[in-house]
């Protein structure tokens, strides 16, 4: 029954891993939360017929005729309202456009609203055709539903990156701050334990969970939404490990001085929030102004997300993401080194 005592690095890693497994809440945040998020967002944005835009036709002698013409457009949901009711509906956003006949054809809408602009174009098309206009060049639509280009395909690598950041930072940073508060760090350095082994054990234990959490999320995306890994699994694994390492380092650095849990929580959120929002977890960071793009592209989560998407969505080879790997590894090296330098053990 009693096994011989193993080297400190192994005992440290094993105890850290057991502690985490016995922390029920932490298990939820690491494994349950990203799955729930993927499930909710995946269903919210699954493919369906695009919504029809509500349009009002102002009551009048031609209204029924116009209504029939507008119904030929697959993009519009027209109905007849009195002029006053139509005005109200437009003001309250219940319709995006009013079609009226006051002598000529009149479109009332807010030109800054994309829906209204689409509705105006569609309505005009439908009415002009009903009045006899013919297309100069015949054209037809091809809709794109290619696997790898859906929102969920974009989302899963983003969630993976977000999770690697969250668990790397909380998993390392919170533990350290907690141990400092309980004077456990002080007790540990009162032994011959090597500080480097302690820090390494934190990372090794993270690595065990990282493998599990990445596998669970990727398998979930595959089974539930058919999100494939188009590149190699090995490349995906390597990027995840290096990314996890970079964020463990950042977590260690964040927690290297903090004396209270409140202090470390605040600092963690301060560091993670910009990356949550800007690094392209939920939507592409290209939407931010050009002026802040260089800043966004320097964030480690941006680099990690891009590399994950390159491998999962585009099937990029490992060589293609090598610069990203080097960049993330450098983040890890620098943060670990600085953290150890300024670390407060008591």
């Amino acid at each position, binding site marked *: 029954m*009693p096994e011989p*005592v*193993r*080297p*400190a690095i*192994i*005992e*440290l890693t094993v*105890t850290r891993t*057991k*502690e985490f497994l*016995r*922390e029920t809440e932490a298990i939820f945040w690491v494994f349950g939360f990203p799955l729930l998020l993927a499930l909710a967002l995946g269903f919210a944005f699954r493919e369906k017929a695009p919504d029809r835009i509500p349009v009002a036709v102002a009551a009048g002698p031609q209204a029924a005729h116009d209504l029939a013409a507008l119904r030929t457009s697959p993009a519009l949901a027209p109905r007849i309202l009195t002029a006053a009711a139509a005005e109200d509906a437009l003001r309250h956003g219940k319709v995006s456009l009013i079609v009226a006949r006051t002598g000529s054809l009149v479109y009332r809408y807010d030109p800054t609203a994309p829906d209204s602009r689409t509705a105006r174009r569609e309505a005009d098309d439908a009415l002009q055709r009903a009045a006899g206009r013919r297309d100069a060049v015949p054209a037809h639509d091809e809709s794109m539903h290619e696997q790898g280009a859906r929102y969920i395909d974009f989302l899963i690598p983003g969630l993976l990156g977000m999770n690697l950041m969250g668990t790397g930072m909380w998993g390392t940073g919170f533990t350290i701050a907690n*141990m400092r508060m*309980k*004077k*456990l760090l*002080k*007790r*540990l*350095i*009162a*032994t*011959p*334990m090597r500080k480097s082994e302690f820090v390494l054990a934190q990372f090794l234990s993270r690595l065990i969970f990282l493998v599990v959490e990445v596998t669970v999320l990727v398998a979930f995306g595959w089974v539930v939404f058919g999100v494939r890994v188009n590149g190699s699994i090995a490349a995906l694994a390597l990027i995840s490990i290096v990314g996890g390492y970079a964020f463990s380092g950042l977590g260690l650095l964040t927690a290297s001085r903090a004396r209270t849990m409140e202090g470390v929580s605040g600092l963690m959120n301060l560091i993670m929030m910009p990356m949550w929002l800007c690094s392209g977890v939920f939507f592409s960071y290209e939407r931010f102004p050009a002026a802040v793009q260089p800043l966004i592209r320097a964030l480690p989560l941006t680099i990690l997300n891009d590399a994950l998407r390159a491998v999962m969505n585009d099937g990029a080879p490992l060589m293609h993401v090598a610069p990203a790997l080097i960049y993330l590894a450098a983040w890890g090296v620098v943060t670990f080194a600085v953290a150890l330098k300024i670390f407060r053990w*008591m």
Partner: protein
Amino acid sequence: MPVDAVSCHGLKKSYPDVRAVDGLDLDVLAGECFGLLGPNGAGKTTTIEILEGLTRRDAGEVVVLGLTWEDHERELRERIGISLQETQLSEKLTVYETVRLFRSFYRSGPEPDALLRDLSLDEKRNARVGKLSGGQRQRLAAACALAGDPDILFLDEPTTGLDPQSRLQLWDVVARFRAKGGTVLLTTHYMEEAERLCDRIAIVDHGHRIALGTPKELIARLEAPNIIEFTSEPALPADTFEHLAGCHGCTRRGEAWQLRVDSLAEAVPQVIAAVERSGGRLRTLTTHAATLEDLFVSLTGRDLRDA
């Protein structure tokens, strides 16, 4: 060559708001149990943590087992065992896992299971640390301190807040460690703990050593083996009784007077007579054999407990 297990001279340490240690000298002999006795805030913890190499000193010399922290930190860490005042060991680990972890840090030491047996923790082997009682936690802390089979054991307030039975169990651990030739340096603010466990005691107050010796020597410094404590109505001035035969001094403690006397049989009737002579009335009167607590009161005019 009898080497001092621990020695320090001219030790000083200040924090922004307080001078915690102010020129302290200590010499702990190999194989003895040495106690730092003093009230809370006397500088005991700062002193012991400097000796443990955990807190930097401002001035003074520290030598442990003939080595210095500056040059031999790793060697010293292997050879000393420490129980801090307020460490909370990881609650999610079991007793056995915790001891194993600490054992893994040292080159050599006892088997974890043997340690648990020695500290009467074998029944709690697989219990989570979070479920242990205060006494069990302190014994686990002691087990971690003993995991490297140390030459010196440093215990900071090892029994504070423990029930009497747990305290006895911990005293037993200390006794067995000493029986194997170990040296113990402990801090306490319980005078009975110091009297029972320690070969020699340094009484500290405000970062100074105010007395040093064996418990017997220290009590003998009171020059009187007995204490009479009484209150009267109205309260009487000191000169009413400080010149009574066999009285070696008196100290005011709140409403009460404390007299240090040679013989209770002689002194008690004199006190009663003196109170009556001055027209007052005795409200309470108790007596006890002199203790270190009384020495502290006579040296500082304050109680150990609430000083």
